[in-house]
């Protein structure tokens, strides 16, 4: 076999070997003009708004699924139920105001007790 360098220098090799569909070059001009026309056409209002509408729909669907899931699993009512339970428990306890004050005074630090009094009596 000939040297690769000589093969590459062969005039036949330096001619592009590709084929092109018949009449291709006669169609280029018209197709380029079609592309230019299409790129200059102003998009319709529907086309402009479509992405925003799609995104809004997506948020609605995701929100709906989330709300439905919370509703179905009862997670939304859990906080209300816990508050009701605490109130019921407290209602069952009986103590005088003096007992409550003594309890708080002994259980809380002096600073926290002062702060609580300040909030309660707004001084």
């Amino acid at each position: 076999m000939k040297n690769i360098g000589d093969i590459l220098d062969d005039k036949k090799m330096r001619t592009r070997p590709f084929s092109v569909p018949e009449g291709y070059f006669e169609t280029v001009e018209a197709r380029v003009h079609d592309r230019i026309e299409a790129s200059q056409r102003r998009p319709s209002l529907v086309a402009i708004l479509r992405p925003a509408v799609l995104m809004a729909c997506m948020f609605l669907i995701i929100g709906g699924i989330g709300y439905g899931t919370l509703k179905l699993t009862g997670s939304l009512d859990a906080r209300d139920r816990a508050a009701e339970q605490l109130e019921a428990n407290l209602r069952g306890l009986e103590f005088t105001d003096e007992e409550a004050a003594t309890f708080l005074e002994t259980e809380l630090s002096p600073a926290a007790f002062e702060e609580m009094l300040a909030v309660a009596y707004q001084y």
Partner: protein
Amino acid sequence: MEESDILCLYRNGERHQAFNLMMRRYSESLYWHLRSMVQCHEDADDLLQNTWLRVWNSLDTFRAESRLYTWLYRIATNEAITFLNRSRQRAMISLSSYTREVYSKIAEDDNLGADRIQLALQHAIAKLPPRQKAVFTMRYYDEMPYEDMAEILEVSASSLKASYHHAREKVEQSMKNELDR
């Protein structure tokens, strides 16, 4: 019609006519330039249309500091280089082989099917990095002067000579490996 006549027509407000004359004069050479780089008709056709679209949109900015022909070639070459870089990245992301994809596109051309040496040359060109591919094909097929290539690629003629030399060595080595197998 000469380049200067086409530009004169354009400056006199005959925008469409000047553009049509440009397309008639340069479409074929630009197509073959793009085809040598991307090696597939569909891709070359797409890039040719993109090139003309870009030319149409930026003709107002053409200041005639370079020749029209080198300006057109620069736009087409940049389109091809961007396309080749994207194709390589896409292949990398999808974990497919870029060269295998190009080989199968090359094999679709009826003219190439049975010619082992031509296939080896096209495979070797496919393996070159995009810019080197531009340098190699412009010089090898079109025998374009280095000064024109320098204007198109915006690099010095001496670095282009070195780049062509390296590309040719790579092509020879790749062809040798393929033909010896």
